[in-house]
């Protein structure tokens, strides 16, 4: 197992690289979901503020 993690000695470069790659993958997903939920909240707040007649 430790042999797998050492990756013939390149592990100290390999694992950070994979962490970075996977980190960017996760981060982008989270940011996208975040911005979607913010946009939905915003839209809902606007709908509550404006009376229905005005949004024609």
């Amino acid at each position, binding site marked *: 197992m430790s042999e797998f993690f050492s990756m013939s000695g390149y592990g100290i470069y390999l694992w950070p*690289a994979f962490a970075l790659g996977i980190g960017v993958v996760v981060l982008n997903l989270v940011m*996208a979901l975040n911005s979607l939920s913010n946009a939905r909240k915003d839209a809902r707040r606007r709908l509550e503020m404006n009376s229905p007649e005005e949004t024609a």
Partner: protein
Amino acid sequence: MATWTWFHRFGSPPYMYGFARRWAPWFGGVAAFAMLIALYGGLVLAPEDYQQKDAFRMVYVHAPSAWLSLMVYTTMAVAAAVGLIWRMKVAHAVAAACAPVGAWFTVAALGTGMLWGKPMWGAYWVWDPRLTSELILLFLYFGYMGLRAGIEDTAKADKASAVLAIVGVVNVPIIKYSVEWWNSLHQVASVMKLGKPTMNWDMRWPLLLMLLAFTLYFAAVLLIRLRAELLRRERNASWVREVVT
């Protein structure tokens, strides 16, 4: 005729919003599944390279990031062109949704490239043509996002940044060629090039699967971001009421 209706449907924000909501989980799910298999294939099943040993496994994260960085820019430029030519709002929203994702994967490609470079070249940064091009691509993304942020009116920002994206995409091959040309003039002796060692099938299928997984992942993230963009842009439209309540 069929293409025309297709075109109109995708030009309609509520249709596109529904489409994105339906499909994003599928793309995301398949991407996650493929990514896991590709990781296992790349890190465990694939044999080590006779020259780079296990360091070659970098390719499974570096190459897909680099691929996305360029692919996203191209997608952005195509969407921008469609938006500019057919005055299609949804296309502009797609372009706007692309930029941050592309910039992040350019950063990932640079970072993984540097981490690959350290054991191969003995330094994190070497003026390798591919890393250099990637860096300039990052600056192109910065310019695009800076222009978008600098113009207040969304419609105006859409159009101006669309022109920039098109100019940029025409320039990308020229930049790439010039950087390679520059590098060939200053060839430093015995620097190992990053990139494809000769790969056999066991090494190659995880890479291909990973490229596919990243592409599907991008589609999923793009669709989610697109929904957010559409909600923000169409906040006065009546369909928004139906989808958020």
